[in-house]
């Protein structure tokens, strides 16, 4: 019996959004500049309240605190200024702690109490995690930190500040914007720009293709394999792991593309969140390309304040461990995410230690064949870590790895020919597009100078989505964070 319990939210791949987006964009351009922020704020509130209306109060609470904190930080000096920053950070982290980490903390404490033979139990909180909580709290924190550092003037217009946090395209799954990038855009009139509008639509279409054609098709295989791994062969789990590697990329980068496209059509530039991450040649390079808005957030607000790489080796290792531990925790309150983060820390440290500039390893991978080998090797390493990210718990992750090691030579489960063919075609198209962009090749379809090639490609993608897209209302993976 297959039952999918849907929590109502406005997904970018839903029909609700297909109505919401053009209405919001059309009215946005019909309004004068004076009212545009108000319209966007109202639309963003509606977008957020589609999930659980009452949670808007939590968001409103943190927005008010951070807005007032920003004004005070700019006005105050010395330790008072610092205290205001701490108040703001505590408020944001506090909301995260209650909604995201409290039950995880309780479960672990209860387990320890049980092991210690105590009968006392901490109560769990029965509530849903507000969507995009980690994203908008981090975005809010980046504002107060930047004001504290003097890189950003405090925003006096409350509505525009609220819009900075709540701007609907990036509200629930990023990119986690910086105030320097977005606030000034919200102040400026964004005239209708034909090229920007067309580029935005193309981004939306491409993001939708990645999500509906590739990621959601892969998710059916991945779900069956990971959540019933005991009945799967090792080789099937290897394939499922590689599929999940592609699924999470197409899912999250697809979301980011739609978010950037939706903003771009209204004239706003959101930061690029993915830069062909699976073409990275090493793990450090991977983190320069994957979820850039989050990795740069940790770099700017955690890694550099800890000393960055301008410290002794041991201290640098500590810094890397802290950053990746936090990154893992940011993703979710589960040991699997913590292990995933720590694995990346270990990979990064090992890479730094063995790949010294001018050294044997670097020379080995410097040729074209070597670079291809480095990309494949890095893909394998990243995929291995994804096992922990995808598994329901650590026992499952270890079980899956054990099965992979002992049963890698068993028969692979293959779905229907049509499913396999469409999956491989989808993966090929996404990889090919990344390669074309990475190496600046001339073979472009959506960006072709010939208008008929462009329009035909657009129509072909839409038809492919309609004929072969998976419309099962599958949520974006990063919505849960």
């Amino acid at each position, binding site marked *: *019996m*297959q*039952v*999918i*319990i*849907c929590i109502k939210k406005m997904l970018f791949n839903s*029909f*609700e959004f297909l109505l919401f987006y053009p209405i919001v964009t059309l009215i946005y351009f019909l309004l004068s500049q004076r009212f545009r922020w108000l319209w966007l704020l109202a639309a963003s509130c509606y977008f957020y309240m589609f999930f659980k209306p009452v949670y808007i109060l939590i968001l409103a609470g943190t927005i008010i605190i951070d807005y007032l904190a920003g004004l005070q930080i700019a006005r105050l000096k010395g330790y008072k200024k610092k205290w205001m920053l701490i108040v703001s950070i505590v408020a944001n982290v506090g909301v995260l702690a209650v909604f995201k980490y409290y039950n995880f903390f309780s479960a672990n404490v209860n387990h320890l109490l049980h092991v210690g033979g105590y009968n006392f139990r901490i109560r769990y909180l029965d509530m849903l995690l507000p969507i995009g909580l980690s994203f908008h709290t981090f975005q809010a924190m980046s504002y107060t930190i930047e004001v504290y550092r003097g890189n950003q003037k405090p925003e006096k217009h409350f509505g525009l500040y609220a819009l900075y946090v709540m701007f609907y395209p990036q509200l629930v799954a990023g990119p986690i914007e910086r105030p320097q990038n977005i606030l000034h855009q919200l102040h400026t009139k964004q005239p*209708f720009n*034909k090229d920007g*509008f*067309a580029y935005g639509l193309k981004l939306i279409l491409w993001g939708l293709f990645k999500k509906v054609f590739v990621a959601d098709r892969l998710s059916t295989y991945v779900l069956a394999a990971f959540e019933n791994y005991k009945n799967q062969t090792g080789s099937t789990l290897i394939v499922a792991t590689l599929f999940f590697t592609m699924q999470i990329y197409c899912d999250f980068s697809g979301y980011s593309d739609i978010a950037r496209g939706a903003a771009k059509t209204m004239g706003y530039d959101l930061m690029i969140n993915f830069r062909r991450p699976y073409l990275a040649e090493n793990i450090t390079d991977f983190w320069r390309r994957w979820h850039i808005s989050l990795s740069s957030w940790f770099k700017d607000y955690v890694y550099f304040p800890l000393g960055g790489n301008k410290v002794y080796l041991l201290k640098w290792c500590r810094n890397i461990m802290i950053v990746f531990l936090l990154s893992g925790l940011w993703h979710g309150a589960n040991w699997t995410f913590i292990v995933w983060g720590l694995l990346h820390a270990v990979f990064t440290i090992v890479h730094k230690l063995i790949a010294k500039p001018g050294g044997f390893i670097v020379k080995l991978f410097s040729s074209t064949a070597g670079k291809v080998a480095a990309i494949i090797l890095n893909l394998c390493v990243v995929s291995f870590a994804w096992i922990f990210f995808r598994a329901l718990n650590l026992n499952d992750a270890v079980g899956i790895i054990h099965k992979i090691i002992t049963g890698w030579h068993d028969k692979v489960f293959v779905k*229907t*020919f*049509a499913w396999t*063919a469409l999956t491989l075609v989808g993966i090929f198209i996404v990889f090919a597009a990344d390669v074309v962009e990475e190496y600046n090749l001339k073979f472009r379809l959506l960006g072709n100078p010939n*208008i008929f090639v462009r*329009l*035909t490609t*657009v*129509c072909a993608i*839409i*038809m492919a989505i*309609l*004929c*072969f*897209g*998976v*419309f*099962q209302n599958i949520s974006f993976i990063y919505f849960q964070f």
Partner: protein
Amino acid sequence: MHLKSNLIFKIVFCLVVLFTADRVFGFFMNYQVRHLKNGGLFELKYKLVDANPLVVILGSSRACHHYNTTILQNRFNGKIINYGEDGSDIVYYYVVLAQLLKEGKKPQHVIVDIRPNEFGASPYLNVVAGLYPISGEMSLEGNELGKIAPYENIKLHLYSYRFNNHVFDLIGATHGPLEDTGTITGYKPLPPRQYTMYNGTESNFELHDDMVYYLKAIVGLCKSHNIKLTVCTSPYNANIVRDRSIEATEEICMKNGIQYLNYLNNGLLGLPSRFFVDEAHLDTNGADMFTSDFMARIK
């Protein structure tokens, strides 16, 4: 202004091309449907369009694997078709019945298999979407389904969406040997597997009123078309203390004078665990025993 009109021209051009492609594609796929020869969609089309069953069995995978139509044939003189479908729910059962009636079929007896927690989860509309290639607009006429999925009606104006993810199946099913419609009954027995003991207790889920509505709608359809209705909950390999869906089913059946046979917790037939392949499904031997017992009890 020129820039805007240029962009509008491109958008209109795209829409025209898309509309044309959608219609041409739809025409091509409809042709495939008319010439189906084998496969799952062929079976579905036969059951929904070509067959004229006397007895209709509606339900999920449990119905599909539990009701042996050959055994039931001893009780009824006429075609019996099992419409049980993996992963389906009460919305699907309703839609199938509505479609059969729309096609002018006149079954005399409808048997609906209700699962524990039948009304405890949101409708799983993707299974209903699996019927679209055969008949895109079915049961949407009265906008019944539209109450749960208001956008489905709009989406079906696109012919491509109707055939979504069935393209290869349809093309494949128009080739190859012609399937024998005489053997299509919808009953799919499960082979016995190693004995496993289950001792679970179902959770007490909340009711979804939207889902309860569809059982009432089935009752209404049967009444208005003068069709005999029997509701049953076939055996389940778990100790279910209380289930709100079962309680709601009992209440509706009692209110409407409908026979309800509840096999939960070995109430009517004490089938040991070895006759199950998992907690929810009987194996072929269990299905035979259940169907025989059900046939004897049915009024």
